[in-house]
């Protein structure tokens, strides 16, 4: 392979997505495949999924040739890009033809070298492509068109469809012919992307891709965070440990929000440390946030958008302000706070948005929901702008995390799938509400949602184990109930939303359950787990209290 991929045993929670993309890619054979863009926040696993897809297409079938290309920021002159793109395509296409892995490593060879390599083979289509390119190489735009069309031309001449996989696609906005980048050049992808026998699967920085002209030609496939079971397994695999031997603290697991990159960093840092138990994970997290790979990653993102140190300091300060503001902030507010002009503030905020550090594209900006990023920004802000010493940073970060750790209370129930079993879960919640003096209305709402989730779980259960696993966690201002069973899948993998069950819809009252869950819980998530399916319902206690208050005021 021209790149490293995770081994099957370490590739968690993406089998469904991989299988779905693989099936889509094979549709190129019948001319029915559509180009797609994989989207999701940084670290969610888009690149790894693309690499796994390439491996699968290369080794497991002969009908559709895969071509993988990572846009290199050092090769963005149109001439350099066109030539590299064509050579890599030809090398990988020939490698697929003969299943010769060694050909991957010929990617550095010249077109003349490649011509010599194929001269004794019956590959007229490849020779013709090279001749065509060489005849037009003096005109950079023609050369670019020929390189981009190469997969399609090879398909027309050889009959073998090609799936083009492009990573870091957003970098193509910096393609240039003479000096300055010309974002219009990326429009030349519109035609190749539209062919159904040479579909493209592209990924990169989702926000920047969204702003490129080709994005309207692409179907968007969002990648969801890993579910808690897969997230935990990802970390444990790096520790060479099994579930039960070592357990990732639930609070930390939630903080990492199913992001495979974050999970990998914590797994590796924990593995390198000497402590055991919960403290080993928390220590690893603190070190990662202060000066580990996590921080390095986000610092490099910030540097790439703000190469100038002065600008970077302002950008960091603005990020920190936005991360801690409960309201969205306008460019005017930011300009006033940081003694900038409106246009300076807008330019910085827009770059932060493109970098994925804040949200909002229409002049009003707010924090992302990424707790790890917030911790890193806080830490960097204190270190680089407030010049606080390291031990202060560590103790302040601990203070942020420890109150949450102390308030955690967890209850696990295993219920047989018997009639009205959902009432046991509902009554458990009621007692928990009394023990923790929670608002009765809040508990009542979550009870309704839990009852519906249990009924849903029972309806979608499949043979074998007739049990429901209910967990309730009270964690600071957060009340979470999860309902899990060996149920068949009832969510659409690409959206994470339940699909419409036509049979259920015929039964009076069915179809309302999920609406009720969404009405009465502040968050509703559906996750595929090793056991089956899990529904997670979250109620924010302070938010609910606010809602109660607002309701009361409205009624009055």
């Amino acid at each position, binding site marked *: 392979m021209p790149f490293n991929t995770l081994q099957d045993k370490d590739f968690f929670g993406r089998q469904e997505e991989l299988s779905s993309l693989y099936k889509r890619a094979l549709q190129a054979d019948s001319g029915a495949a559509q180009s797609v863009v994989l989207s999701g926040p940084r670290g969610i696993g888009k690149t790894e999924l693309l690499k796994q897809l390439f491996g699968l297409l290369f080794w497991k079938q002969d009908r559709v040739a895969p071509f993988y290309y990572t846009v290199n920021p050092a090769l963005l002159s149109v001439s350099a890009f066109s030539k590299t793109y064509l050579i890599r395509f030809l090398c990988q296409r020939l490698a697929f033809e003969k299943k010769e892995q060694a050909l991957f490593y010929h990617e550095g060879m010249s077109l003349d070298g490649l011509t010599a390599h194929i001269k004794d083979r019956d590959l007229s289509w490849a020779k013709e492509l090279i001749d065509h390119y060489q005849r037009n190489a003096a005109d950079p735009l023609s050369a670019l068109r020929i390189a981009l069309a190469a997969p399609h031309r090879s398909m027309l001449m050889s009959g073998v469809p090609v799936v083009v996989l492009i990573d870091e696609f957003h970098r193509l906005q910096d393609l240039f012919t003479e000096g300055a980048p010309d974002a219009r050049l990326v429009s030349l992808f519109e035609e190749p992307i539209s062919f159904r026998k040479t579909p493209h699967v592209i990924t990169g920085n989702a926000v920047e891709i969204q702003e490129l002209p080709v994005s309207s030609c692409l179907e968007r496939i969002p990648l969801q965070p890993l579910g808690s079971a897969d997230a935990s397994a990802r970390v444990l695999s790096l520790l060479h440990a099994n579930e039960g031997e070592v357990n990732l603290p639930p609070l930390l697991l939630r903080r990492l929000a199913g992001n495979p990159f974050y999970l990998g960093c914590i797994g590796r840092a924990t593995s390198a440390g000497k402590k055991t138990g919960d403290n080993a994970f928390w220590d690893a997290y603190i070190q990662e946030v202060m000066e580990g790979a996590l921080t390095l990653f986000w610092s490099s993102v910030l540097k790439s958008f703000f190469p100038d140190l002065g600008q970077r300091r302002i950008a960091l300060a603005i990020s920190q302000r936005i991360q801690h503001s409960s309201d969205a902030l306008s460019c005017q507010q930011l300009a006033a706070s940081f003694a900038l002009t409106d246009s300076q503030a807008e330019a910085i905020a827009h770059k932060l948005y493109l970098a994925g550090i804040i949200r909002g594209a229409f002049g009003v900006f707010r924090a992302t929901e990424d707790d790890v990023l917030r911790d890193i920004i806080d830490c960097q802000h204190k270190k680089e702008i407030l010049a606080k010493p390291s031990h202060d940073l560590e103790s302040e970060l601990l203070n942020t995390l420890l109150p949450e750790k102390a308030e955690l209370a967890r209850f696990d129930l295993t219920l047989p799938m018997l009639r009205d079993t959902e009432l046991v879960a509902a009554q458990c919640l009621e007692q928990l509400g009394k023990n923790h003096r929670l608002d009765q*209305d809040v508990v*009542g709402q979550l009870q309704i949602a839990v009852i519906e989730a249990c009924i849903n779980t029972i309806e979608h259960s499949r043979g074998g184990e007739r049990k429901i696993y209910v967990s309730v966690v009270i964690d600071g201002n957060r009340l979470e109930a999860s309902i899990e069973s060996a149920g068949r899948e009832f969510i659409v993998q690409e959206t994470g939303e339940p699909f419409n069950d036509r049979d259920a819809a015929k039964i009076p009252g069915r179809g309302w359950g999920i609406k009720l869950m969404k009405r009465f819980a502040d968050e509703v998530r559906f996750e595929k787990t090793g056991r089956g399916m899990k529904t997670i319902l979250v109620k924010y206690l302070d938010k609910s209290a606010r809602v109660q208050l607002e309701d009361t005021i409205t009624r009055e």
Partner: protein
Amino acid sequence: MTPKGYINDLGAESLEQTSDQFLGKGVKKLVVNFNDVQYINTIGISIFTSIVQKTMEYDSTLCFTNLKKVHRDVLEMMGLIKYVKVFKDEEDALSFLSEKR
């Protein structure tokens, strides 16, 4: 009518039978007191829908009393509340019905 405990399919069907009997005998005013209802689910509520429909067919009036806020929210969300009269307690409902000819 005073349903108790859990309004699921069985609970609601039993209530439906009772209301059918009353409506069949020509009763024009029905009161359902939710005071002892602890939990409800969507299957139960869907059966309530048919009770409401029959009440309307018989040109009768259906009143709900002593609803917990969360139960009222569920009925509202499922679009049932606009077809019934809701009162704080039985006394209020009876007072309303006695004034109604």
